[in-house]
């Protein structure tokens, strides 16, 4: 992971702080009134200038010492906090960098790069929950045009989402990264992990599992690039080599359902033999049966999915769709409303509800769904 970090961060740290030097000016203004304070201000000026000079001359250790001394005099000096933290990060003193960045963001909580570097430091100290929280905050605030840093943040958010078992969100992010020009090679293992629903970081892959994960990633990426023949070859090799691994039949099955539904159904059923508690395979099968108007089979699978994952929005959505197809409009609406509550940004659920409310004559509710769909479909509106 260290290698990936360095590669992704690149030169992004060698940039000015995402803040002006207001702390420094304020210090001078406030402290310049008395003799003692004036001496302290002068000392701070000397130290801060020496620190900046040492940094620009690549005398990192000197710079670190000088920034620390200056910050002892003026703890809220934002520029100093930023440069000290970036130097510490580059020196791989991640815990120290993290502690300085916590002070930085406490003073300046609306700047994305500060949260980004804090999250990256916490990633290195293996405080993954905090790292994800802070990197997401950085994403929300923006990187101020720093493309390298934005790519790093997206990458680490994606791999952390997988580790926290949010596989769909992780996959969506990684596919979006590829669409925006990210080199797919770096994402083979992260995509493979998300596709196989394994909550591991790439650095946590055991050696004897790497091949399966890479095949899953390569297959998914080939499919994303619309290289269907290549994807099929990889997936079929994968199921032949690892027939008892959870997730591999699901991946191949999901691919085949679009091409040869009968083969896809066979693979999905095989997946459920290997992973009897797998929800996505049940949902894909239910969807296929719904398409084929085999409502009883679809209903049974959707009900099983809801029973297995009570709070799973896609499971409730599928059950809602199946119930409506079977003529149980009220029951279907109830399930769709549950799905909407769990995942309000899923457009498909809202379309389902719009149609169902219209059929039920609930014009106001239908109108509300229509408005929500328009909002979600607007740029930056949702999924």
């Amino acid at each position, binding site marked *: 992971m260290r290698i990936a970090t360095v590669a992704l961060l690149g030169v992004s740290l060698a940039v000015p702080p995402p803040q002006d030097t207001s702390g420094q000016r304020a210090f001078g203004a406030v402290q310049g009134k008395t003799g003692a304070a004036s001496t302290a201000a002068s000392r701070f000026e000397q130290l801060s200038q020496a620190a900046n000079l040492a940094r620009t001359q690549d005398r990192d250790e000197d710079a670190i010492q000088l920034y620390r001394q200056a910050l002892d005099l003026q703890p809220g000096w934002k520029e100093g906090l930023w440069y000290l933290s970036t130097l510490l990060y580059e020196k791989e003193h991640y815990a120290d960098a993290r502690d300085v960045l*916590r002070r930085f963001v406490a003073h300046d909580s609306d700047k994305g790069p500060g949260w980004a570097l804090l999250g990256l430091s916490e990633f290195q*100290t293996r405080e993954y*929950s905090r790292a*994800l929280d802070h990197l997401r905050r950085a994403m929300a605030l923006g990187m101020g045009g720093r493309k390298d840093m934005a790519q790093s943040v997206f990458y680490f958010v994606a791999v952390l989402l997988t580790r*926290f078992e949010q596989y769909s969100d992780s996959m969506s992010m990684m596919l979006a990264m590829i669409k925006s020009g990210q080199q797919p090679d770096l994402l083979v293992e992260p995509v493979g992990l998300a596709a196989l629903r394994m909550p591991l*970081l790439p650095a946590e892959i*055991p*050696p004897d599992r790497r091949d399966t994960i890479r095949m899953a990633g390569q297959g998914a990426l080939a499919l994303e690039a619309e290289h269907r023949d290549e994807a099929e070859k990889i997936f079929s090799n994968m199921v032949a080599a690892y027939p008892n691994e959870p997730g591999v039949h699901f991946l191949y099955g999901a691919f085949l359902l679009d091409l040869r539904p009968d083969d896809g159904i066979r693979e999905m059923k095989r997946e459920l033999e290997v992973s009897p508690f797998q929800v996505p395979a049940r949902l894909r099968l239910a969807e296929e049966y719904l398409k084929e108007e085999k409502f009883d089979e679809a209903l049974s699978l959707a009900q099983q999915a809801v029973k297995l994952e009570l709070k799973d929005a896609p499971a409730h959505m599928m059950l809602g769709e199946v119930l409506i197809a079977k003529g149980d409009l009220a029951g279907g609406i109830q399930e769709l409303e549950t799905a909407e509550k769990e995942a309000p940004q899923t457009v498909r659920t809202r379309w389902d509800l719009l149609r169902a409310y219209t059929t039920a004559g609930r014009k106001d509710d239908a109108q509300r769904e229509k408005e929500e769909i328009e909002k979600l479909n607007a740029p930056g509106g949702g999924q």
Partner: protein
Amino acid sequence: MFVLFPFLALLFTADPALPRKPQKSFENIGTQADTARTSDHLDDAITLYSEGVRLRPSWSAGWWWLGSLLYEQDRFSESQAALQHFVAIARDPAPAYAFLGLCEYEMQDYDQAQHHFQLWARKGWPGTADLIDVAAFHWALLLTRKGRFLEALFLLATEAGKLHNSPALAEAMGLASLRMANLPEDYPPERREMVWLAGEAALNASLPSKEFDRADDYLRRLTLHYGQKPNVHYFRGTIFTFERKNEEAKAEFQAELQISPGNVPALLELARMDMDSNELSEAASLAKRATEIAPNDADAHHMMGRVLLATDQFQESARELEIAEQLAPDSATIRSHLALAYRRLGRTEEAKRETAAFLSLKEKEEVMAPPQEKTAVPKQAGPPK
């Protein structure tokens, strides 16, 4: 970890019993600090509380809120300093012990954190429900680190009933289940999948709905890939024991001994099973082997003492139990068996002494019991007086 428990949010709903602030300027600062805090202007609140406690170092509520807010900002050493002031002057500092433990955990001062969690628990687990959750969780991590796996699992299983599907909880349970004396932050990365599979098995088995089928599926995957690693079969055996699948459990404990012949917990589980089925000579052989492998293991001597007690070898039993008592003086059950051995030997006074110790320790041991069963302390979040 913090994200898992957004407990600070609950602190802000509190109705703190703020002491009166006689000086006007101090009063103004206090009022402004409270207003800043309740309107989510945390930086301003921290500045104002800092100013308030500078003017009035005896302002306990100020130290409390300052410590809490600094904790919210992950500024743990500063939070710790504020909370230490609070503890020094507050009439009832107990909830602060949990916060201190959390700060010290983050500062990697693990022994001190352990001390404060213990102190907090002895005071009856005071605090909001979320504070209790986060403190219990971190205490369990420290117990695992110390090798006190069963106590850790006891605490974590209590949390499982409340949090259900939580990746952090599963990871913590995985470490304790596999008897890995590590924190989530410091175990070898290549063991992550093993820890995850074990943790999911433990978590599903601990849910109020007892999802044993799902637990078994994770265990199957765990043994498929990691069946040659120490403690994997032992752990599977313990889950089968919960499921009352005794034959399967026994097979797993025996499989563990094939991989790790010196695995004392597996030996002791087998000895216990043999005792339960009245196969006392087998139990004695296993317990003896355990004491030979681990002469400083209280559980091994305890089991040996129990087997000897069951075979009416009271003198020898007392001797083994006395060793166990020396190794684990705080174990109530060892005292209970020792009292029984003394009684059988006619050593009445010693039996009475051990019985009294048992009763006292039993009460102390219950410090680990689920907090909601332990205490009727009101679930308020404001500063204690």
